[in-house]
Structure formats: structure tokens, C-alpha cells
């Protein structure tokens, strides 16, 4: 019924009105056309081409379609270890960033301090510094003759320099440094919008500050933690520079393996299959986030 009614009102506009409406209907398409071309040719087409390569037996000169490369990537212990390490690394980085970042986000959202703007600048500015510069900075701090070893030696705590530069945790440190600002800004954006009267009400009703935080403010800010986590996790799984520069070849992650498969071994189909597995992992995380947001909005 209702469609019939709206249909009939749509059918009667005067000719001039219809012309205006047709123009305004075409206008967004015209404005979006260049962007659709860029995203279509620069994102959708390349990814589709990559998907196609991952299903070929050989590249170039494919003879048949096959899933064998996915079989290799998902069953070979070498690949499985790397996939496990990649997602573990991203998870650890995300959790640490959330824990370390939350209080800073709280400060940005709630403090009345005159330093607040400076803190804001201090959080954002590192985002604009070249990643290579930051990796060199970490090398200076963690190196055998770096800052930490110099301080420890001056304090007499060590005789031999600690080998801080190779391994999982130096990569974690470097990634947390790069991605922490994204987490802080995501949480602060949500914390800033929470009505403070909820917390005040809990206080008046006798809840202590810890209880108020755990049962009122934290649940309300979960959305900020979730969106920050998605950004941090998705960037972490695809990262290349940090593991290679701070891991010194000891921390093989998917990004490094994909690059090796394609550039060094020139085995594009296997590399492409690994890349698609990485993409699928990212999409699953994004899908979970979408479901979470929808459920959260309904409450």
C-alpha cells in the first residue's frame, strides 16, 4: 500500500521539477566519477587480479584453475607458523596499545589542564614523522651501543651489552610506538562524547570511583576501544618495515614472506594466496567489528 502511495506522488511532479530532480540525481554520480575510477583501477582491479593469480597453477602462462596454493599456505608448517606469528604479533600490539593508551585518552577527554593541547600535539606529531626516521631512532635506543645499554652500563647494572634489537618484543615495541596515537585518538573521541552525568549518578548512588569506572564509563567507551583496535590490528598484520628493521631477520611475518615469495622466489601464485589469506583475516576482523557496532547501536 505504502509503495503505491509514494509511487503515485512520485509520478505527478511538473516537468520542470522533474528536470531539476534528474539533474540532482546525476550530480552525485558526476562528482563521484573520478573517485570511483581511482578506487576501481587502483584498488578493486588490482585485488581482483591478485585473487585470479592466486587461483592459477602458474604465473604467468596459467594452464588451469587450482586451489593448491591455498592448500600450501594453509597446511605447510612453515606458513602456518608465520601466519600464527603475524596474528599473534598484531593481537599483542593491539592489547598493549589499548592498555597503555586508555589513560592518555582519558586525560585528553576529561582533563581541564592548560597542557591538554600540548599533549594532543605530542600524541599526533609522531604520526607525521617518517617511519624510517622512527626505526633509526629505535635502533639508536635499542642497539648494542645504544641509549639503554649506555644507561645500564653507566649504572653498573651490566657489563656486556644486552641484545635488545633482535626479536619479537623489539618489533612489538616499534609497532606500539607507531600505532599508539591511533588507539589514543579513537578512544578519546568516544570518551569525549560520554555524558558525564551517568558517572555522577553512579557516584551519588554510592559506587566508588573504581566501580563507577568498571560498570559505567568503561562499557560506554568500548566502542572507542573497538574502533581503535581494528585500526591497530589491521595495520599491524600488513606491516613490513618494522619487523624487517627491528627484527633483524629473526621475526618473519606474513608481509615479509609475501614479499619473499614474489620478489625473491618469483612464485607469484603462492605469494598471492598468502596475500589473500592476510586479506581474509583483515576482512574477518572488520566483519566482527561491523557486527559488534550494530549490536552495540541496538542496545
Amino acid at each position, binding site marked *: 500500500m505504502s509503495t503505491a502511495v509514494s509511487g503515485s506522488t512520485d509520478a505527478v511532479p511538473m516537468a520542470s521539477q522533474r528536470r531539476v530532480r534528474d539533474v540532482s540525481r546525476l550530480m552525485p554520480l558526476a562528482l563521484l566519477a*573520478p*573517485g570511483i575510477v581511482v*578506487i576501481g583501477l587502483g584498488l578493486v582491479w588490482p585485488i581482483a587480479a591478485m585473487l585470479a593469480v592466486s587461483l592459477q597453477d602458474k604465473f604467468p602462462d596459467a594452464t588451469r584453475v587450482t586451489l593448491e596454493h591455498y592448500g600450501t599456505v594453509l597446511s605447510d608448517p612453515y606458513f602456518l607458523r608465520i601466519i600464527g606469528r603475524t596474528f599473534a604479533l598484531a593481537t599483542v600490539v593491539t592489547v598493549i596499545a589499548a592498555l*597503555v593508551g586508555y589513560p592518555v585518552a582519558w586525560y585528553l577527554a576529561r582533563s581541564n589542564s592548560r597542557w591538554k593541547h600540548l599533549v594532543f600535539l605530542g600524541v599526533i606529531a609522531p604520526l607525521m614523522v617518517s617511519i624510517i626516521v622512527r626505526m633509526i*631512532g629505535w635502533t639508536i635506543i635499542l642497539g648494542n651501543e645504544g641509549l639503554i645499554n649506555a644507561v645500564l652500563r653507566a649504572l653498573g647494572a651490566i657489563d656486556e651489552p644486552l641484545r635488545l634489537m633482535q626479536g619479537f618484543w623489539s618489533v612489538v615495541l616499534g609497532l606500539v*610506538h607507531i600505532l599508539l596515537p591511533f588507539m589514543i585518538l579513537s578512544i578519546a573521541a568516544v570518551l569525549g562524547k560520554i555524558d558525564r552525568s551517568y558517572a555522577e549518578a553512579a557516584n551519588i548512588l554510592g559506587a566508588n570511583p573504581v566501580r563507577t569506572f568498571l560498570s559505567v564509563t568503561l562499557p560506554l567507551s568500548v566502542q572507542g576501544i573497538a574502533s581503535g583496535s581494528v585500526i591497530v590490528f589491521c595495520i599491524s598484520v600488513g606491516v613490513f618495515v618494522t619487523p624487517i628493521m627491528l627484527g633483524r631477520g629473526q621475526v618473519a611475518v606474513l608481509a615479509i614472506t*609475501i614479499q619473499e615469495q614474489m620478489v625473491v622466489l618469483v612464485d607469484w601464485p603462492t605469494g598471492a594466496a598468502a596475500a589473500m589469506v592476510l586479506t581474509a583475516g583483515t576482512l574477518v576482523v572488520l566483519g566482527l567489528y561491523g557486527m559488534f557496532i550494530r549490536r552495540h547501536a541496538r542496545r
Partner: protein
Amino acid sequence: MTASPPRPGERLLAGYVGLVLLFLALPVLIVIPLAFSTDASLIFPPRGFSLKWFANILERPEFASAFRVSATVAVVATSISLVVGTLAALAFVRYRFPGRDTLLLVFMTPLIFPAIVLAAALALVLSPLGLLRSIAGLVCAHVVLTLPYMLRTAIATLSEIDRSLEEAAQTLGANRWRTFRHVTLPLLRPGLLAGITFSLIISFDEFTVSMFLVGPGLMTLPLEMYNYSEFTLDPTLAAISTILLGLTTIAIVVIEKLVGLGRQFS
């Protein structure tokens, strides 16, 4: 509420925030003293004072040529992103159409899409077109990567423009183009300038995607620095980093003066 003296909890929080800021700033700022060291390796604390590492940059033509490539790509890609992003932002802010939210999500995807996958995929399609190891290929990739930043800034700025100003211009007889040219564009200018600065930085610093598209004879500065670090870890890289930090500081001041840095991220 505002006038109360800081409670111990607040002081503790402020102290903690200070520590986190130190963690964020230290790896960035530590390159500056090392750039003036006389030692040939990255030893802390630096000894002596010399400008020889800055001189070394000038003696190695590959750094200057990589800088030129990075700057050219950043400027061309940003110019294209600017036009494409502003037009798309007008559609997203001013019109409601089916699939709007989905399309906006797709336009923003390069922000979180695994860089390594996009890198390999772009190399795959650019190679048969003969665009591998070319400025044009790098520009194509960097337009995709900078578009979300430009779009986000343009959307934020456009949403805040008072539409009654445009309506007033149209009532006074200005057509769509004249209204855009003389009313909308001047109001957009500070936001767009901030977006431009941001996009220049993103493009100039890009590493992973460029890695698949460069080769002998065509290098961007971050990749040239990485290649150098593979063989020599001397303060030359700290010196280049110090110059880049100077340029970044100028960019931050520009954005801060124009729109406030915080607006870029809210």
C-alpha cells in the same frame, strides 16, 4: 569543578601521560644529537661535534635524486587527490543517494588495507602496462593511498560550512559554478590546505607500496634510506632524518595555524 586543586589521582595521571609522551617523542628526537656525532656508527651518547654527515649527504647523488623522485610523486599525487577528493566530498556531504555509506567505506579502505597486499597487487597490474619503475606508476599508487586523507579533511570542512551563505549567493543570482568558485571554495581553503599538507607527508613517507614499484634508477627517499641502512648504519641517516624532522615540523606548524591539528583526527 574547574577551580579545584588537582587531586593526587589527577597528578598521577598527568605523570603517566608525561611518560607516554616521552615514549612517543624519544625515538623521534634522539636522531638529532646523533646527526652531529663524529663516530662512524650510531653510538649513544654521541661524541664530538661535526657536520661531516650532512656533507656526506651532498656527496651521494642518490639521496638528492631520491628526494627529487619523492617530492615529484608527492606533489603530483596530492594534486590529483585534491581534485578527486574534493569532488567526492561534495557528493558525500551534499547528497543522499543509495549505497552512500558503503561507497564511503570503500573510499576509506586504503587506510587500513594491508599495505603489502595492495603493493603486490598494484605491481601485478602496473607491470603489463609498463608502469613499473616509473614516476607515473608511483603516482597512481600514491593517489589511492592519499585519497582517504584528502576526502576525510574535505568532508570535515564541508560539513561545517554554513549553507545559508551559498543560498544567499544563489538568491542574489549567482549560478552553481560562481557560487562554488566565490563562496564555497574560499571557505574550504584552510581545510583543503591542511589536507594537502597531510597528503604530501603520507606520500613522501610511503614505504611498502613504493617498494614493489621502484627499482634501479628510480628510488624514493625512504627506500634509498632503507637500502643504505642495509649496508651502513652511520649517522648519515640520522642527518637525513634531522632534515626531514625540520620539514615535518614546518608542516605541523602550517596545519596547526590553518585548522588545528586535532581536527584532522576527530
